[in-house]
């Protein structure tokens, strides 16, 4: 208030040339077709759009467009990065009063955020378009919901989120009459370049916010101001700042109970220390109001848990074997192959799960099959590497090792590389089944070897990680503190793998030098999955981790109910991963936010396989499942 001329909000000045707005019918990112404008602000616009990835149903989304006006390229890209960081933060929020974030992207000077479309009106419209006061019961119920979501934000870890801009136009009332917060200030970085920007909106923001302070008590003040506006129908933006006490509620609306007036007045105290100290405190006070006025019974049903229940999801098919499936299925040319502890390798029609053939080994099969030249290859507890013709399911050849084979085959240069509990890494000619060489790894080899740039990488149960050339000569060796059961992945000259010593390692692929180490909560045997400079892996601590491979910083983690021993995989923008808790999880891969989960009747220890738009996973409930991705 020391500087009123600098506190103008942007709703009124239409800086954007209307002709620059997206026309109906425009499709963004080959996916979101604009249907119309929902709202226009100073530096941003919100459109209603249809998500064309769902061609058979009309899935509406809201697309927020922000224009980047900075001229300096560094400031411009900083703004975009801040936007992206903010989008990632928002995407990690999970509360029914916060819209879901589906996507974000930047095209030239415009950045876009794709969010859940909320059908309904904002509170400002509701107040303006009605001639009468809103029922007190309704306002109390909304207030409780708003306290609930503020409490969720203020208790966000690792850092509290302060909403900063609570006001009637930022609160939507959805079709079920629930509150949804719609503007998370994501556009702020874009506005910051304009002179006269003020954080928060005049009329609703508390005194201290004009000094640049943001605290939970600031949001509580703004909520009080919002409720005051809704209940008195007097717009605080048209009044002198901080003058609520000059407009007593009962003077404008005599039908409000005095207990509610007290709660709102306390939220609007000039000094932050005189207000409710937490949103929970204000929520209990509001519940007290509901209790005293006898409206509690109507309310309790509507303030249930904050977490959105997963959608019900059903497999498109499932197939039951005769024992546990602990390994990972494999897809090739319309057929899904899976090993099972009933000793069989099954071939199933990928479209409907129909049985095609099975091939009996003499021991359980945990090895993930691989394909080469009309045959399927896999290892078994029966000590053998099996080669089976895909057309007939008959044996082509078998190769004996001296221990159970839990490693999976990797095929390169016409040879199969596979480890065995006999401590050797074997290189076998794929056509003849004859050995080329074997290398003593000193301990059982259960990880899957991989070949990249003519070098072979494999880990052992004693924690040795080897890099070999094609002659089997050791180029370098790295020693982890405990077993390396996880298989490695190689990208841009760096090899990544996890260890039972609870560490993810990134080593120079040529020398074995450590570039970085990332500590997990507990051991891992999950093979990392790489996408877009992000590494995804599971851990025995029950979490699925997402790590930035350049900075080795955690991006997010999602905690399941039990160990995660299989590996995550990504299809489009979804990550799929099983857990020993029996669920297959589908998460947004950039945010780690849960999309859905499906509970099997056993544990999931393997890795899913994807083809086209289908995802398949085995469970120890003896079944293999296929889902629409």
């Amino acid at each position, binding site marked *: 208030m020391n500087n009123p001329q*600098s506190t103008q909000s942007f709703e009124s000045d239409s800086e954007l040339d209307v002709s620059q707005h997206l026309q109906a019918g425009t499709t963004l990112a080959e996916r979101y077709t604009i249907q119309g404008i929902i709202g226009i602000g100073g530096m941003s616009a919100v459109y209603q759009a249809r998500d064309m990835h769902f061609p058979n149903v009309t899935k509406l989304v809201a697309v927020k467009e922000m224009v980047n006006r*900075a*001229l*300096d*390229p*560094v*400031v411009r*890209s*900083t703004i975009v990065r*801040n936007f992206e960081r903010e989008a990632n933060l928002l995407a990690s929020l999970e509360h029914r009063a916060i819209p879901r974030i589906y996507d974000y992207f930047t095209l030239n000077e415009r950045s876009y955020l794709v969010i859940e479309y909320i059908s309904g009106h904002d509170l400002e419209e509701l107040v303006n378009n009605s001639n009468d006061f809103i029922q007190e019961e309704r306002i109390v119920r909304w207030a409780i919901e708003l306290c609930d979501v503020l409490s969720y934000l203020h208790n966000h870890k690792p850092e509290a989120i302060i909403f*900063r801009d609570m006001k009637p136009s930022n609160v939507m009332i959805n079709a079920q009459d629930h509150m949804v917060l719609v503007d998370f200030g994501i556009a*702020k*970085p874009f506005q*910051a*370049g*304009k*002179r006269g*920007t*003020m*954080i928060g909106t005049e009329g609703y923001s508390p005194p201290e916010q004009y*000094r*640049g302070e943001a605290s939970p008590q600031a949001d509580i003040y703004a909520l009080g101001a919002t409720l005051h506006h809704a209940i008195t129908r007097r717009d605080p933006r048209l009044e002198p700042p901080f003058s609520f006490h000059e407009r007593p509620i009962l003077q404008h609306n005599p039908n409000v109970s005095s207990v509610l007036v007290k709660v709102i007045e306390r939220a609007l105290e000039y000094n932050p220390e005189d207000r409710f100290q937490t949103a929970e405190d204000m929520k209990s006070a509001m519940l007290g109001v509901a209790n005293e006025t006898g409206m509690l019974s109507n309310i309790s049903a509507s303030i249930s848990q904050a977490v959105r229940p997963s959608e019900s999801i059903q497999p498109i098919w499932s197939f039951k074997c005769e024992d546990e499936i602990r390994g990972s299925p494999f897809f090739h040319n319309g057929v899904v192959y899976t090993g099972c502890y009933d000793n069989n390798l099954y071939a199933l029609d990928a479209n409907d799960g129909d049985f095609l053939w099975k091939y009996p080994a003499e021991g359980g099969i945990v090895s993930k099959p691989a394909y080469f030249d009309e045959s399927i290859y896999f290892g078994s507890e029966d000590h053998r590497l099996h080669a089976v013709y895909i057309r007939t399911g008959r044996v082509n050849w078998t190769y004996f090792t001296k221990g159970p084979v839990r490693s999976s085959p990797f095929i390169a*240069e*016409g*040879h199969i590389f596979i480890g065995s509990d006999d401590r050797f890494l074997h*290189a076998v*000619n794929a056509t003849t089944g*004859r*050995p*080329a*060489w*074997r290398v*003593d790894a000193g301990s059982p080899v259960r990880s899957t070897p991989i070949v990249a740039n*003519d070098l072979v990488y494999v880990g052992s149960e004693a924690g040795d990680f080897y*890099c070999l*050339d*094609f*002659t*089997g*000569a*050791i*180029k*370098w*060796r790295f020693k982890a503190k405990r077993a390396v059961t996880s298989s490695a992945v190689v990208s*841009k*000259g*760096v090899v990544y793998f996890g260890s039972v010593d609870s560490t993810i390692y*990134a080593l*120079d692929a*040529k*020398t*074995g*030098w*450590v*570039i*970085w*180490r990332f500590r997990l909560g507990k051991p891992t045997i999950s093979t990392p999955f790489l996408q877009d400079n992000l590494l995804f892996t599971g851990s025995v601590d029950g979490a699925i981790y997402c790590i930035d491979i*350049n*900075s*080795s910083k955690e991006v997010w983690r999602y905690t399941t109910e039990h160990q995660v021993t299989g590996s995550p995989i990504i299809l489009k923008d979804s990550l799929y991963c099983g857990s020993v808790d029996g669920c297959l999880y589908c998460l947004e891969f950039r945010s780690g936010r849960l999309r859905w989960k499906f509970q099997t009747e056993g544990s999931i220890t393997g890795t899913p396989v994807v083809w086209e738009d289908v995802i398949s996973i085995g469970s120890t409930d003896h079944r293999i499942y296929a889902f629409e991705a």
Partner: protein
Amino acid sequence: MLRKIGKILGFQKDEPQSSLHDGEADTIPIPDEKIRAVVQPPVAAEQSRLPQLIAGCAQSVGRLRDHNEDAILVYSTLFSNQDSYVPVGLFIVADGMGGHKHGEVASGLAVRVVAREVIQKIMLGFMDIHPTPPEEGIQEILETSVMTAHRTITKESPGSGTTLTAVLILDKHMSIAHVGDCRAYAVNGQGKIEILTRDHSLVKRMMELGHLTEQEASVHPQRNVLYRALGQGEPFTPDISTTTVPESGHLLLCSDGLWGLVPQDEMVRIIQASPSPDSACQRLVSAANTAGGPDNISAILIQLPDFSD
């Protein structure tokens, strides 16, 4: 052609337990020409071009300051042995804080502490009779060294502060440790320039550009988040990232005395038009002085080996 790095580093030698080619090993799973490619270098092995890092640098007090608070370090080496080469380089720019006492003490300490730790823990490993890789990861070593520098400055020169941007090149990997608003850029052969660091002072930059008044900046939501410096205030973590060294072109490290005055296009034009990194740096610094030279100016330019073929 860099396949034998391991041999130079030497740690595959002490590998006693590999029993290669035991009785059953009769064939090799690859054609002969592949094996030759593996065990022999290309016949006409680059006789004239070793993949060295050619660095130049320049500094100026500028036209308005009376002393230089910037500090730089240029350390470039090449190990070549048995047809394999490992370029190794460490390049640091530190900008002591203006307005504080002894900015040059802080920047000097930062450069020395980081350089000493990196050279001790990483570089000396190369020179050992029995070379061993460091036990810590490269990123951990960088982070520890920056934090050590931070504590050293806090202790030895309280009240002063400095930014620090360090680039460590080990063969094909490039690790950057960064705090503050010096910058590292990659400029490719086609003149495309990419900034590799993120300024920790967005608000300051916006004020310079006239997008924000001081008063607006004081209530800007990012005013705390994006400001970090060694020797100043609360503990922090440096930005550390490791990426692949670009296949060709240049790396430029500079203080804000350069990047704040000379537009990117101009920097690229100077780099491309100069016969050597050293003369490019001289010209870059002159350009900043011509533009007013309000601050100290430091530039390090590294010409990268051409891996693009």
